[in-house]
């Protein structure tokens, strides 16, 4: 059977193929290594037990929710202490607690955020310690 309007149909199919396979040809099939998060800041190396506020898998997926809860609690209710599930108590502070250990924003926060395309609004209010020092 004849293919009518052959030129237009084939051009359309070619455009569809190019658009649909965009991720395949854009990266040229080059393997990308996942971001390398640096956990070797002086503060972390001094810790006896290398444990964040909560467990690492929880923090990886939920840190933004925890930080949002911290922000709302501290700013609106003046709640400045956080008790973890296993009874440890932390001061609620991004600069004082989080960044005390993770003082390497460029090698820690940014690497994952850039990789996943996340744009946290933290730094529109908070200072970045390593830039101030």
């Amino acid at each position, binding site marked *: 059977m004849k293919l009518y309007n052959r030129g237009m149909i084939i051009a359309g199919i070619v455009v569809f193929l190019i658009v649909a396979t965009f991720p395949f040809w854009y990266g040229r099939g080059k393997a990308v290594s996942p971001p390398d998060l640096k956990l070797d800041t002086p503060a972390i190396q001094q810790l006896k037990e290398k444990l964040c506020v909560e467990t690492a898998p929880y923090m990886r997926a939920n840190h933004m929710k925890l930080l949002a809860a911290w922000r709302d609690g501290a700013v609106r209710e003046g709640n400045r202490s956080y008790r973890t599930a296993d009874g440890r108590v932390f001061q609620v502070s991004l600069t004082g607690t989080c960044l005390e250990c993770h003082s390497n924003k460029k090698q820690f926060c940014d690497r994952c955020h850039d990789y*996943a395309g*996340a744009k946290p609004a933290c730094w529109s209010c908070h200072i970045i310690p390593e830039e101030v020092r």
Partner: protein
Amino acid sequence: MNLIAALIAVLILTLSALGIAFSATLSFLLTAILPYAAFTVFIGGFIYRIVKWAKAPVPFRITTTCGQQTSLPWIKNNPLESPSNVWSVMGRMALELFLFRSLFRNTDVAIVGQRPVYGSAKWLWFFGLLFHWSLLIIVLRHLRFFIEPITPWIKSLSTIDGFFEIGVPTLYLSDVAIVAGLTFLFLRRMTVPRLRYISLVTDYFALLLLLGIVTTGLLMRHFFPADLLHVKNLALGWVTFAPAAPKGVGTVFYIHLSFVFTLLVWFPSSKLMHMGGIFLSPTRNLANDNRMKRHLNPWNAPVKVHTYEEYEEEFRDKMKLAGLPVEKE
């Protein structure tokens, strides 16, 4: 009944996805083999349908009567509603593709005081447009998982989409719009008796499947966060043909993937093929040039014609004798 069947189909999908999440072998199948299978079926099926449609001859111009066709120079024509050349056809197609022109023309009739009264009905147009545009934006935003480094235009699209910075992580406007659009399209089929009567299982299934994809996506973003590091590792693994087994992505992610792969596999054989089919709609893509060009029917049997010139050539002498006027002396 149709609705219940579609609902059951979606539930079976959800349950099987849950089963897959708890089995190592099956989750390997879902994350390493099914993506390629689903994508191949989608691409292959899509091209098959287009080629099949293109083989159907459309010998005559199907003109729609919503605009004045090009005729005499002193009659004002409407190039977008009744195009007569390629550029006007492109204009009409663009209006249809980007703004759903033909849905905008939708009317509703009601009996007011024993008289039928016609009025415009823009609801379907509005929510249809809302749904399709947000779906496009959402698909484009998902490219952030498939390419590294992420191109600036994808980042800016996400920034504009999350312009109001509501909540953490930011609520995307397209997510709200797609839920609104799909909910309207679904409730429309449920509540309007005429539509309920003509709705098939697949009509409900398409909407429920899309709603399922959107719901699981929103759950992963706002309620049960998936570890995006592993999600991106997996997506990048697909496009570099080295899929890595994901860790810590949660069961919702598996349901999301199962829905998406079902959609991809089902797409070419469903009514959702209007994505490709809209380009081939004869009432939109054929110029109204019946009076300018002769369009031959490809399956016409060859007809032996005897033109006037040939006729005159044959009988000129006799015509002259009879005193009939001839064109050539």
